């Protein structure tokens, strides 16, 4: 009987244990923040903004697109890395285009979440200015991300009714958004820029969204959309403000120790993607390039030009053996800051805007100012007989000045109707690879990633990539 009571006792205990176990079923995931407690203070918003900047990785994807231009050739250590892409193999699954899309929208989504978070934050006295600056930077980043999307994926820059990308100013979760038109996206960008201009603090510095970065972005947009008078004026206002770097400062700028002509750059640390890994195996005993500077570009570099020393890594190259290593990003471990806007680009915008408006002498003069700084001496001014001739010369100058900064492919896309040329590689750079992307090729307009088409029934693909 005693043992009977014992057993009943154990059994009852077990039942009670189990009933209390029912609470265990309300188990929130451990180690996470919820919707309710993520944005409570200004500091939390700053953390959100820090995350937004960290997601602004479009520039590295822009630079990757230099691979399918005439700036690069297959390198000595190639094991097939990026060879498909080099051969103009661009389809809806290409990670190069996919990454641009994802990175831009990841930034936009983060911005919109933090902007929503502004509503739930409890401010303390004296934090209003800091909040304004956070919001301003968020709007600035949203404009920047939408422009990145538009410049790659829109079917046209000048036709306002053409298909661009979804413009998004709310937190998308499962909404399947269709593409907006170019003019709708541009209006959204303009709106974000004007919000940002009102809010951004003047003292943010070149590593954060600052008022001049907004101007530079707008200047670039106006150049692309063909509003040359405004492009020229906006570029001019920055030229007034920023001197061109001298030869030493120019070299130091790419070693990240000088910001003389930097308007906006993204700081990179060892925790970030090392930009040189686009071309190099990042291993000891190197550098081991699987991609190198093209012969075509190397031939255009004048040894008297500081850009020869910056773009070309002479110490580890042997031009006679077809070895031309890219030198623009050569900090230890290839960790270099990404320059997004430099004043030299403003010179080139101003020159092109002048040329397009027929002011050929002004264009030549602006170009000369830039070259004088780069050569450190007085250079012979060009003399143009037509806007086309001037644009071709400016394009050549951009190829040198902005090499490996993600401009080349878009520059050719943008000017190809005027110049009548697509991508033409030097024959030495494509002995077994493809040499040419014809001027009217559909691949000048990258594809919407397959992953988006699959997850969004309202999305439309760009022409040429199938359904």
């Amino acid at each position, binding site marked *: 009987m005693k043992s009977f009571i014992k*057993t009943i006792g154990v059994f009852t205990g077990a039942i009670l244990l189990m009933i209390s176990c029912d609470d*265990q079923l309300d188990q929130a995931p*451990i180690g996470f*923040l919820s919707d309710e407690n993520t944005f409570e203070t200004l500091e939390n918003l700053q953390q959100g903004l820090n995350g937004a900047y960290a997601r602004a990785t479009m520039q590295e994807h822009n630079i990757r697109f230099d691979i399918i231009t005439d700036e690069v050739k297959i390198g000595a250590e190639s094991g097939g890395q990026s060879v498909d892409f080099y051969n103009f193999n661009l389809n809806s699954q290409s990670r190069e285009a996919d990454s641009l899309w994802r990175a831009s929208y990841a930034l936009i989504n983060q911005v919109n979440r933090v902007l929503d978070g502004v509503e739930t934050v409890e401010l303390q006295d004296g934090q209003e200015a800091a909040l304004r600056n956070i919001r301003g930077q968020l709007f600035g980043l949203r404009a920047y991300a939408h422009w990145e999307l538009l410049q790659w994926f829109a079917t046209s820059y000048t036709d306002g009714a053409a298909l661009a990308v979804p413009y998004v100013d709310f937190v998308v979760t499962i909404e399947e958004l269709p593409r907006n038109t170019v003019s709708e996206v541009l209006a959204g960008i303009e709106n974000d820029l004007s919000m940002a201009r009102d809010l951004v603090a003047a003292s943010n510095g070149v590593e954060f969204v600052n008022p001049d970065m907004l101007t530079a972005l707008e200047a670039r947009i106006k150049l692309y959309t063909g509003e040359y008078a405004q492009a020229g004026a906006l570029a001019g206002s920055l030229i007034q403000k920023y001197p061109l770097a001298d030869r030493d400062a120019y070299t130091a700028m790419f070693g990240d120790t000088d910001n003389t002509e930097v308007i906006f750059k993204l700081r990179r640390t060892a925790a970030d993607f090392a930009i040189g890994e686009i071309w190099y195996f990042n291993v000891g005993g190197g550098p081991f390039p699987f991609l190198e500077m093209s012969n075509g570009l190397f031939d255009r570099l004048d040894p008297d030009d500081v850009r020869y020393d910056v773009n070309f890594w002479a110490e580890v190259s042997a031009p006679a053996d077809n070895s031309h290593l890219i030198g623009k990003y050569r900090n230890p471990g290839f960790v270099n800051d990404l320059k997004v806007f430099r004043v030299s680009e403003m010179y080139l915008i101003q020159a092109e805007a002048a040329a397009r408006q027929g002011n050929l002498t002004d264009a030549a003069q602006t170009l000369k100012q830039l070259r004088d700084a780069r050569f450190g001496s007085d250079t012979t001014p060009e003399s143009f007989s037509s806007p086309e001739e001037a644009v071709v010369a400016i394009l050549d100058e951009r190829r040198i000045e902005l090499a490996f900064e993600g401009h080349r492919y878009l520059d050719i896309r943008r000017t190809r109707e005027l110049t009548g040329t697509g991508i033409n590689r030097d024959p030495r750079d494509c002995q077994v690879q493809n040499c040419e992307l014809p001027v009217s090729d559909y691949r000048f307009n990258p594809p919407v990633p*397959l992953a988006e088409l699959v*997850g969004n029934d309202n999305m439309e693909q760009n022409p040429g990539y199938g359904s």
Partner: protein
Amino acid sequence: MRTNLQLMLAPVMLVLCMNSLFAQENFVTGSVVDQDNVPLPGASVVVVGTTRGAQTNFDGIYNIQAERGETLRFSYLGMSAVEVLVGDANTIDVQLVESAEMLEEIVLVGYGSGQVKNRVASAITTLSSEALDARPNASFVQTLQGQIPGVQIAAVSGQPGANSTILVRGLTSLSGNIEPLFIMDGVPIDETNFRSLNPNDIESINVLKDGSASALYGNRGAAGVIVIKTKSASYNSKLDIRYRTQTGFTTPQDPNFEMMNTQEIIALERQTGNPLFDAMNSDQRAFLVGEGINTNWADIITLTGQSVMHEIALSAGGQNVSNYSSLSYFEQGGTVRGSNLQRFTFRSNFSVKSNDDRFDLTANFTGNFSKSNFTQGPGTGNIYNPWLVAQLAKPYLDPYNPDGSLNTVGLNRDGFDVMPYVSLNSTKLNSRNDEEIKLVGSLNGGYEIMPNLRLAGRFGLDYNQRNDLDIISPLSIRGQEIPNVGSELKGQQFEQLERDVQFNTNASLTYSNTFSEKHQVKVAGFVEFNKGILDNFGFTGFGIDPRIEGYNFAPGGLREFPGVAPGDESLDNLQQYYIPEIFSGRTEVSLFSYFGILNYDYDGVYGLDASIRQDASSRFSDTNKWGTFWSVAGRWNISREKFLADSQVVDLLKLRASYGTSGNDRITGTRYGGTTLTSNLYSVGNGYNNTQAVYASSLANPDLKWETTKQLNVGLDFGLLGRVRGTLDFYDKRTSDLFYATPNTLLSTFPIISRNIGSMKNTGVEASLDVTFVDTPDFNWSVNANAAFNKNEITELLDGELIEGGQVALQEGRPFNSFYLVRWAGVNPASGQPVYLDAEGNPTLDYNTSNRVFLDKSTLPEITGGFGTSISYKGLSLDALFTFVGDVYRQNDSYGITEDPTLIGALNTSVALKDIWQEPGDITAIPGVSAGSTRNLLTDRYLENASYLRLRNIILSYRLQQATLDRVPFSSARIYLQAENLVTWSKWRGFDPEASVLLIEEFFTYPTPRILTIGLDISF
């Protein structure tokens, strides 16, 4: 010898056999023997209508208090019970004979309850320890291959003890759990890891395949249940000591592809304008290459692993206590360097009962420690992956130093040109290992609180602790870049501790009774709670001092100023390379259930089982937390009907039918996965310029709910002429509310979102047949075969849409993992460019993903099974088991890369490239160099049939005959020679056609080895 050993173990005996026989005052004694007059130890003797009972001792003698006029009932498993009225005599000797049917096996149906096989209405396959015995696989799961109809098992790697994927009656979930629930002695255990368990401890494995059986485990039984019982000793059994040993070696299987030799590859390099050999510089020429060298790198990279096993097992039982204990050591080497498993295990299974048989308790415990060393990067494209190197390294590279030793340095740098040296260097200097402690324990108790009413409880624990240690040596080539090319100290140490604890408690009340002698009824109610806690933390430290490699790394705060002259140090050029990376995480999951079961039997002829249960899972939101699952099953033992009872032909004929439902709450498959999917969450992480940031880390779908599987099963068991036994089962299994990670717009930053989106069905037939052709005392010959045909079909997807997943796509009416590709149609003789078929089947030169079509090929095999034979003459026997898998497809990326013309300079290539297109008019299957790389396109060019037939196991053994045994100090002895995976027939062009049924693209994974062993079993 025997005496000595027993003396040594005498203290153990004292403990084990505490109960000696006591003479009672009013007693009846006697012996119980079988039909051959052999004493029956452990036979049960009860006084009918009382609670008095006893068991016979090892000599078959019993002793029980009984008065004149009472009835004694003698019973023994598989024998017909006998009742004797106690008269004047105090001695009653009884002979029991085998019951009309063959030995009635006890089948574990669930929650510890056994059921005589005859009374089972469910589709259950039982494997006894003989089917597992002595097989040299580190994980017992691999041994089950081809032995159970309807169970598909495939090793995912050749690493000793590696996990296998196991499917019971096809795939039942798209992204949720697909593997059966494993129950060991009543405790649910981790189904992904058995490398630490000793297979020889297993007594039987019952595979519960249909809905009525798995409904008993409703919340986790949707993919089937595998119930494992470990060995135990009978009460009143004599001491049995068993020693087993095995030794042998593992070798890689023969590759089914051919690579170029030195002359061929040099010629191809020159011909295609990638003259890597000719372009070698003086360093390379001096040390590494030569036109006269012709290295088969597969021979250099692979090796023969050693394997050793020792085990000692003891069992003994007294009247009220019994114990089985074992101790084992196992070691198996892999077929590449740095890959092996060492394991030490012990087990002790105790049973105790009260004298009146009303109370019983079993305590099972096993403690295991294993250490696994893993090779570098298998299954990856890293150039240190030995399997990649074995196939792709250039044959003109010299594997040896001038002094004849293996060259593991090369040019002491990374690069494709020195690929095999980098791999050898990495396997030699770098290490990856796991040490694992696995404890499984359970306590099962039961008490008959009043006649026919039993109260029972269980507590079970599965504890797994894993310590990972991965070291990249500062002396290795890989170490040169870590943590940074510019850092003074090099190398890294990754260490992780993971602790996984699963608790299970269960309480039950069971009423069972027999009415009017023919109506047997059992009703039981249960409450159960399961909890799993996964904890892990770890770090990566940098900067190792090679003198004390293993457990050291530089202080995180170490500062360096690379390339800066002394005195110029500033914050601008400060580098802190050695800051360790740390992490920590915890996940908890809980399940709570209550359920009831009913069993009814009429005279052993008809039977009905039913169950119903309610389950709650912590994974789902409050509204979707509970799921209800139920089952019914019926049987008709036709051979027990009068019209067949005396049949000389039909020994057994039983018809079964069942229908049941069960659930799955594992949204992403793994035990701890998917716990965040019903919540919107943010995480803290690394922000811009090393600041702190918050990011959205989970997008909630609060509508997620239980995935439910309903299964109908009809089966037949038959036995003829005492020589033939077989089973036949038909099933229809339907899963609804399938979990699936569906594509979501990238604008959300969450490209996939889990939903319950559709339905799937598996229909199939399973059959097994054992035929004994010769059955004489000296000569026996039998054959056995089993086969299963399963058809998987997705019957419903959200909106009927097609869901793409790279190489495969999901669509209604097609099996899971159906390949959806552009059809490759060869090479255009005019241009050397590939020709494809468009969606309509017309040739086209344009590769366009819109031309993808379904190919009626899937990674899921439709046919699986095995067959074997067993021949024995006197003590000599030969057993062979063949297994087969049919109608299964996979992309052969490993082979594809060997035909890639863009890699001719970098890698060795298949001999097929001798036929590369060169000039207009060439008719060949290999496109020209100008076509570039096509292997990564979504085409069926390398989609291969991975069906195979394999001689899975062959064993030749000799058992000492009684005449010999009488002269040696053993009670039995057996010596054997065996081979695992000896021969494989397959069209697959690779090392091994066996791979997980979920694997879509094979890329230099670790192939399963061939294992040859010699073994010895001795009992004292």
